[in-house]
């Protein structure tokens, strides 16, 4: 029974990371009607930005002079700024030019954008401090010179706590973010405008909503959210690789589709479902670890074929 609880815990944790990426997908899809495929890469970029900033701050001695919490908050702000800027860049170069073309063009261009982000990370990221060995707690000098090697994520979340405490913190933060998002979407004027755009773009234009401004704000908020998810991802995984983004993108997209692309809460359900399938397959089926992703994808395909509108999501009839 211990094994079950352990698996349940890691399933929820994995689900949290998928969920945040998937919520990003459904946020962007809601206002833009396009799949922004580089969400995963933006999240990874966020965690790398935090790592880089950590290294810079550590070498500048800020961690000694300022309280730890302030430093972590500062790192989060830096990551959020980077990701928000990246969200804007993505919007400007890979979504805005394709507003009037076929729906698959933005998909292709955002995939290309994701590759650009990934490659820039791989080429340019050169941490000054050897963070892998410190993250793993060992003293051995594992030299990391290029971003193409896995990078150790610094222990920023509950550095003195146990693993369980850290995990619970990750879950709590995820729930907190989702709650904030819920409040934002349903209680503020801006969030309501986002929902209005998601439901009917022309009508919201007519009612005087500044659609282009709301879109930009969505990308800012999405970027910030993805930065936080990158942070949580790093804290959970401890080791980050520059090319994790494509896999997280695919998983997040799958989760959003399984849940219902337009529905933010569907993304939560889809992310959890995928994570549970993956974790329990690798836990209970012999040699299942290597097949976990494959089984998850099979589940996605089954969903797409038999319930394309997702778990939560109304069926839409095709307009002619």
């Amino acid at each position, binding site marked *: 029974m211990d094994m079950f609880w352990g698996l349940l815990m890691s399933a929820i944790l994995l689900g949290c990371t998928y969920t945040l990426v998937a919520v990003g997908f459904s946020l962007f899809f809601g206002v833009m009607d396009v799949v922004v495929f580089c969400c995963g890469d933006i999240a990874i970029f966020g965690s790398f930005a935090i790592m880089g900033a950590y290294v810079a701050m550590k070498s500048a001695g800020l961690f000694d002079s300022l309280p730890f919490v302030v430093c972590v908050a500062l790192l989060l702000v830096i990551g959020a700024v980077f990701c928000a800027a990246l969200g804007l860049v993505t919007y400007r170069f890979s979504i805005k030019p394709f507003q009037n073309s076929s729906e*698959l063009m933005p998909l*292709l261009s955002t995939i290309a954008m994701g590759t650009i982000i990934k490659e820039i990370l791989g080429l340019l990221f050169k941490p000054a401090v050897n963070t892998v060995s410190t993250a793993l707690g060992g003293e051995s000098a594992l030299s990391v010179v290029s971003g193409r090697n896995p990078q150790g994520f610094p222990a920023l979340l509950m550095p003195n706590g146990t693993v369980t405490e850290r995990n619970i913190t990750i879950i709590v933060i995820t729930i907190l973010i989702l709650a904030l998002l819920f409040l934002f979407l349903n209680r503020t004027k801006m969030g309501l405008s986002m929902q209005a755009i998601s439901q009917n773009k022309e009508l919201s234009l007519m009612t005087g909503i500044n659609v282009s401004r709301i879109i930009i704000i969505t990308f800012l908020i999405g970027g910030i959210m993805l930065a936080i998810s990158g942070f949580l991802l790093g804290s959970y995984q401890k080791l980050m690789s520059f090319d994790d983004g494509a896999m997280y993108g695919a998983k997040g997209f799958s989760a959003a589709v399984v849940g219902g692309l337009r529905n933010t809460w569907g993304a939560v359900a889809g992310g959890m479902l995928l994570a549970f399938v993956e974790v329990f397959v690798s836990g209970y089926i012999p040699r299942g670890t290597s097949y976990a992703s494959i089984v998850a994808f099979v589940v996605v395909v089954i969903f*797409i*074929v038999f319930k394309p509108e997702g778990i939560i999501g109304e069926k839409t009839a095709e307009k002619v």
Partner: protein
Amino acid sequence: MTGRNGRGLREKPMTIIFNIVIFGLAFLMLRLPYRYSLALVAIVVVALLRMERKGAVDALFSLYIRNRRVAAFSALICILAIPVLLSTFRYQSHIAVMALIYAMVCLGLNFQMGSTNMVNFAPAAFMGIGAYSMAVMTVKIGVSPWLGMLTAILTSAFAGLLIGLPTLRTKGYYLSLVTMALQLAFVQLIKNMPSIGGPNGISGVKAFSIGGFSLYKAYTFFGVKLTPHFFYLIFCAFALIILVYVAQRIYISRYGLALNNIAQDEIAANCLGVDVPRCKLFAFVIGGVYCGVGGALYASLTSFVGPNDFTFARSLVFICMVILGGMDNPIGVTVGAFLLTVITEKLRNFSDYAQLIYAVLLVVILIVRPSGLIPKRVRDYCAVFGRELLSPSRPDAGPADKD
């Protein structure tokens, strides 16, 4: 419509000269050191864009169609001349073979992405299925490579059918997600199957041979030592010619029209009596066949298959090739595959940046010229079938994209 009659005598030498220029440029791109070669690629791209704007590409196509016998014959000689000229340059021949194989895969992808507007993110997986079938048949079972190639075609066509089935109920993003899932799962699967080598792949794939005459072997003729690629290059060139011909025939056939119709409006296609499921499945199966042929030839060329050759990144490269060349135009796709292969291979010294270059290129093409270098054209049935127009009105042409 210049010079329809009475210029036949001058048109024939013109056709031959154009062929020599085109294939000469291709040869120079392969042969020159990378700086000049890339400069040439840039010049050709700019020239193509200018010619396209001035209508010169159209004029060239109609010239070729009018003098098709001369054009085909001289093109054949030029194509045969390239391996002869490259016969002592091993690496350049290798690039040429790779370009031909990539062109095959891109033609396969074009059926889905270009004609039917279903973006398939798994061409590399289809190619991998073909290559692995070839490897398993020749190495693990030990049959002739020809049988291996047949198996490769059958398995990748079957994979196309399997992937095609869910697509009957889905479209757009959902369809893309299905193919993406296939691509990611394929790599995971072969990495985790020890029986087919796992992450180490399979080495020692046999080369093709015709009656004991191996196509991939260094022969010496009249004291000149040929590269091992010499006969393989000719073999692949013939295979590609057949595949381009078939693709072109399908393009002008009713199936090609039906696929375009589905791309434009599926409901309208349904109303017009197009058998939509059948056409979609057809696009996937024929695409699978093309990728399977490419994969089998690839496995035989490198004599090694491994999971890292058929990743998602490779699929993106194929997509980039198709978009660069021009969607839904077999000639354009071939040109795109050739140009991009040459660019990649000539930039070997900077292979760290290859992915970045592809991605930037893809974004730039999508923004600047989404229709590609040689976009698809209105089907000119009168020219193709050699019938004179009775009236100046346009023939029953396929739906043309005007964007």
